[in-house]
């Protein structure tokens, strides 16, 4: 009796054991076990076919990505052929319905950048501190309840956020805009100013040797700085209170809502990055006498910085690619705000323009108006492709570095 063990690939698994003719059995289950040479050949063939089918299905994703690029580009190219690149990227005149139409998308690109930047500024500090809190501060039992909250925030459909922004938040901003801004300023700025004052007065008195004098000095400094900070808070607050918001559907509204939509992505990816930093680094830092905050800021965050950068890129992409919220609540007015940083004016974004103008564009004959929307889609697609590539490289590199240590 001859038994043959075949090893395939990198595993040491037994694929088939071939036995001589006389012990050959013809039953379904043992077919894998004991087979003739002919059947073995067939099995080998079937395995090849099966594996290539699997491969084909797995490469479906790559084919789809290729198709998306191809078909969006095919409809975008006629626009650039007919009108060139200059008008699209440098002019702010967006009058697609005119004859001949004007297709200057600069203001629209600017609007996209503006709401993306605004939402990033809000979401990144909050997202990273929430991720730190989840990975290092909260005990496991609490974390179990915090995570579903974040997942639910991620699950709410974008059109529901858009509806909230349009129907609830925009009227609120319009009628109560000043007081809301003032309260937000107080709640956000007061604790940080207080902290800054404590740290500054502590640092300024650090050189004084005598303990009681030092105490006295730092208390006086605290009182002086505290009074100044209170005055500053009150002054800015009263300025903000005076602001009257003409229209609640503006860049600020959209930025706030988008930041909450980008938060879950930022939190979960940066939490993974923070978790990937091993215990050893943290324990080393604690052993040298650092507090938890110092450990995180000086040791863990630098080690996880590239992963957090990847999280930020993904969050930015989520905000840039979002359609429904900006379409419903950004005001859809294609001009660059005056002054350029005025978040209280209406803006228009790339995604909202695509969604809003396609209904009026002539889809059948393919007018310039139709193709310019594909040009915008291609622009978004290229940006998202490269951001994804960069963030992926960053994550892979960080994993390599951390595992190499």
């Amino acid at each position: 009796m001859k038994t043959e063990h075949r090893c395939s690939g990198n595993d040491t698994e037994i694929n088939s054991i071939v036995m001589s003719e006389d012990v050959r059995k013809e039953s379904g289950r043992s077919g894998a076990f004991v087979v003739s040479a002919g059947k073995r050949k067939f099995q080998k063939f079937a395995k090849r076919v099966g594996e290539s089918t699997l491969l084909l299905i797995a490469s479906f994703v790559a084919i789809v990505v290729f198709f998306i690029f191809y078909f969006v580009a095919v409809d975008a190219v006629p626009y650039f052929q007919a009108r060139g690149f200059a008008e699209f990227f440098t002019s702010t005149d967006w009058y697609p319905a005119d004859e001949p139409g004007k297709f200057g998308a600069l203001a629209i690109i600017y609007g996209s950048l503006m709401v993306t930047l605004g939402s990033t500024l809000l979401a990144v500090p909050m997202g990273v501190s929430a991720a730190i809190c989840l990975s290092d501060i909260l005990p496991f039992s609490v974390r179990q309840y915090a995570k579903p909250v974040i997942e639910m925030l991620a699950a709410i459909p974008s059109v529901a956020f858009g509806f909230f922004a349009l129907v609830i938040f925009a009227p609120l901003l319009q009628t109560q805009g000043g007081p809301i801004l003032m309260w937000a300023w107080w709640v956000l700025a007061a604790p940080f100013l207080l902290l800054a004052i404590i740290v500054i007065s502590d640092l300024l008195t650090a050189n004084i040797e005598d303990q009681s004098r030092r105490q006295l000095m730092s208390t006086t400094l605290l009182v002086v700085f505290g009074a100044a900070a209170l005055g500053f808070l009150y002054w800015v607050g009263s300025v903000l209170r005076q602001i009257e918001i003409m229209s609640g559907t503006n860049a600020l509204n959209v930025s706030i809502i988008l930041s909450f939509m980008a938060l879950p992505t930022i939190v979960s990816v940066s939490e993974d990055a923070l978790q990937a930093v091993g215990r050893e680094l943290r324990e080393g830092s604690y052993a040298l006498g650092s507090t938890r905050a110092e450990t995180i800021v000086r040791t863990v965050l630098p080690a996880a910085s590239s992963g957090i950068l990847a999280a930020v890129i993904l969050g930015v992409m989520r905000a840039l690619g979002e359609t429904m919220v900006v379409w419903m609540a950004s005001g859809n007015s294609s001009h660059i705000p005056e002054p350029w940083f005025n978040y209280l004016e209406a803006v228009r974004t790339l995604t909202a323009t695509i969604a809003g103008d396609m209904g009026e564009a002539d889809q059948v004959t393919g007018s310039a108006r139709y193709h310019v929307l594909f040009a915008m889609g291609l622009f978004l697609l290229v940006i998202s492709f490269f951001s994804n590539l960069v963030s992926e490289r960053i994550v892979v590199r960080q994993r390599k570095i951390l595992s190499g240590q």
Partner: protein
Amino acid sequence: MNLGTRKILDRSFSAVGIGSIAVMGIALLIVIVPIVHNGLGAVFFTETIEHRNMLYNEFGKGDKAELDKENAAAEAYRKEAYSLLARFETEMETMEPERQQEFRSKYGPVQTALRHLIGPLPGDEEAILTRYRYGQTRWEKAEEKLHELLYEAKWDYSDPNAMAKEYFVSRAAEFEGTSLVKLFPYVENNLDKMLRPRFTIYWGFLTDSSVDSHIFGGIWPEIQGTFFLAVGAMLFAFPLGVIAAIYFTEYARDGFFTSMLRSANSTLAGVPSIVFGLFGLAFFINTLKVSESKSVLAGSLTLAIMILPTIIRAAEEAILSVPKTYKEASLSLGSTKWNTIMTVILPAALPGILTGGVISLGRAAGETAPIIFTAAVSVGSAIGIADVLSSPTPALSWNIYNLASEHEAAAEIRHVQYGMVLALVSIVLLLNLSAILLRARISKKLKG
């Protein structure tokens, strides 16, 4: 730095982190609570007799005999109002022309406001649009309309630097000295007798189709459309995704080709949703011509491509989390690789794969941008299962946008919009919740 300061900094550092999570929780509440509260108002509300009439005439619901009795009781009180109107009209005839002209222009809005409140007046022609055949069907709306009848809204443009301010003028004062003055206190005091409000639970909101583009009726066509689109997307994406995940985890060897496939997967996950819509339009409809124009099929295919990366990732994770010993035991018993995958690994990974599937189903149900150009229409009745290949469908996500932003009477049908948002959000959140529970059970099981 002082030790005390360092401690304070440490504490406040923790506080910032906890604060951020708290802000997210509060934001979730701020978004969810008004949606749930107002959304329930689409089903649980105080209806008027106009609503009962509408239900009987449009859907054949309700008891004819009782409705007639109620209508007669309401009519008794309405007659008094009608006779006040008639008396004023004859009074106007006797006025001198200038005064008559003035009152005539003021009288029109009063009639309109009364029509909005209690429906067509005697002598009106049968309205073509259903919305004009009934008065207010909801009591809280009727109270708003009562205010419009009693007061005329005017705008104050006196200060050119500030926004115009709205102020109200009593109509009773405008008709001072005429017989119409009596109408306003009469309607105010007897409105409940004219409209007979009663608390009701209108489950038909979920199962009825809409009447006169969502002015009345329910949202069944949208719920059904969302169901078709999401399930259709799953039919395409789920098998493909699971097979691709099997390939990635069990067969793929590290190399350029595999890493390229993985890159493609994450690229696909990052494509903005509106670009999927463009692709669906350019490829499925304009190139492949899967249907004449928009259709459920084209929408499902577009959504399927969108959710594919999520399914692949979830399935991959689920397969990888199956303990290696399972696989080794199966192989050592002489099973082939494929047999092992089908009989050992997949059953063990199934709950995890299903979790990913359920989450993707929710995502497909909630997305709007990919179906704008490929599947969604604003108005339409529910389509049969046979029509999914060729006809477009209304869907919850698209109609929320449409009713809130483009409907001609968007402010009048807030309750329908809220009801739709609540329906969509609860579908998605219930799916996610079941996924979370499923996952908790798996992790418990894997822990032993």
